[in-house]
């Protein structure tokens, strides 16, 4: 989709006026819909819809050996799949660069032990640990992909149940794990500090959050900040274009402010999810 100059002018003036085309102000966020536990075969899953952006995340768990330099830590890996259903641009290898960019940002946002404690995933020092595979499927693109993906990942991790290990038998180099027979015997992951990402888009002289597709086209440059509680875990710029130092500071501030609010809203919603909800796309 490409916009004509007049449409861009309209959006630009709207942002300057602090009244965007759908009535939001610059800090306004569109309503989000979230659903957890919808993939039955996964250890944890979530689906998130932000206007037209649709993300499905599933978490799988496997037993692995820890890295030699980090014997006390488990592993986490992100994989993004841009479905060609989302936009025709993703056909073939089209979505690959975006997918790699997304998974790299997620990996760096979750790297710090202060955001997500991988030590909890260690089973036996240097021998066995859990490895989380976070699979992200982009079903529809309606702008603001980074924020939506990070929220969906956090919700899916919140929903993840790690099987409980009753005992570990060591026989020489052989390690045997005795997993609890009861399927419901499991542990939840602690995601209170898991980061949420906020894309701050510079349009004209002002910065906005949660841009839609049309607004993304008008942006001269944008940065993605990952906020864990109130701290930054990652800051990157996406797309072409550069930011003035002063703009950068103000957009970081805006990102932090919105990130904190977003995190609060998400945690509040997640804590109210009851386990007896019906689920599924169609019913």
């Amino acid at each position: 989709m490409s916009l004509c100059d007049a449409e861009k002018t309209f959006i630009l003036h709207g942002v300057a006026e602090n009244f965007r085309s759908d009535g939001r102000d610059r800090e306004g966020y569109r309503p989000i819909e979230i659903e957890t536990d919808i993939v039955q075969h996964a250890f944890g899953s979530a689906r998130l819809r932000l206007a037209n952006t649709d993300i499905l995340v599933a978490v799988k768990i496997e037993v692995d050996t820890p890295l030699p330099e980090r014997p006390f830590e488990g592993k986490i890996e992100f994989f993004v799949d841009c479905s060609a259903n989302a936009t025709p641009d993703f056909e073939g290898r089209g979505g690959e660069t975006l997918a790699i960019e997304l998974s790299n940002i997620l990996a760096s946002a979750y790297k710090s032990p202060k955001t997500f404690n991988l030590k909890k995933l260690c089973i036996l020092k240097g021998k066995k640990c859990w490895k989380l595979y976070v699979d992200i499927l982009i079903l529809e693109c309606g702008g603001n992909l980074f924020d939506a993906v990070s929220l969906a990942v956090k919700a899916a991790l919140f929903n993840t149940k790690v099987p409980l290990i009753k005992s570990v038998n060591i026989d020489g180099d052989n390690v045997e794990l005795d997993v609890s027979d009861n399927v419901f015997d499991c542990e939840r992951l602690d995601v209170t500090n898991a980061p949420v990402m906020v894309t701050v888009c510079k349009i004209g002289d002002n910065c906005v959050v949660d841009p839609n597709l049309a607004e993304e086209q008008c942006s001269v440059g944008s940065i993605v900040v990952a906020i864990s509680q109130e701290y930054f875990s990652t800051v990157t710029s996406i797309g072409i274009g550069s930011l003035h130092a002063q703009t950068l500071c103000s957009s970081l501030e805006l990102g932090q402010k919105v990130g904190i609010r977003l995190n609060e809203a998400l945690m509040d919603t997640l804590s109210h999810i009851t386990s007896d909800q019906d689920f599924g796309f169609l019913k």
Partner: protein
Amino acid sequence: MSQKIHIRTASASSRVRPLATTEKSYKIFTPGEVVIKEANTNFVRGHGTYEENGDLKASVAGVKEQVNKLISVRPLKSRYNGQVGEVLVGRISEVQQKRWKVDTNSRLDSVLMLSSVNLPGGELRRRSVEDQHMMRQYLQEGDLISAEVQSIFSDGSLSLHTRSLRYGKLGQGLLIKVFPSLVKKSKIHFHNLPFGVSLILGNNGYIWISPPTDNTDDNVGGFVQNLEEVISKDIREAMGRVRNCILALAENKMMLFDTSIVFAYEESLKYSVAELLLPEAMVDVALLTQHRLSMLDDYEFE
């Protein structure tokens, strides 16, 4: 100033939205369903149907329409099927030799020939080789136009024309997309709504919302855009409200025409523009609009 961020949980039961109630309910046929049993001689097969074992079956999901012997099934969701004379809004996707390709939400890109536009500078001008070289200066990729269907090619693609002062390049404003079947066909598709917004309801489901146009000095054939003009906050707010109202109506599968949009606008005034993005508000506005429409005497449910 800062708005609250709404994150809701969704479950299968809450996703089925309450449809704005209509007095009549229609049977919806699914593809493969028998529309008429043993329709050998008495009926003629129309769009959206096929014959199998003597029965007439639906090939799309939609409602049955009957004109005498002709049976057709009209789908809710479909690409735009053009008819001669309909007004559309489209986006230029390609500039070619003597023609522009236009995205009009139909199966194939539509064509706007250089010979079917009014070029700036007069009616009776021969379109010369220079005009062909200048084509990108009149309309370039991404530009929005309003046009009328002139004819339909044999492969089903549409040929458009803008040979009237009403049609041409669109200026500042915003475009929204809905299902083409939701736009009610009428004589007038250019509306100046009472609250300072003008609207083009394209038959192809593209709706253009713009600040009010003064029809007096509109004599250039529509090839200029005023990029300097800053639209005032009031008009901007009205435009945003109209946008959200139309999306609320479309979300609840209600027909879009001037009356329904004006009613929705009036009913939505208790919400702020941004609040209209919330699903509850959208359903509420649609229900209230439906209610008011049903009070009109001459209103027929379609």
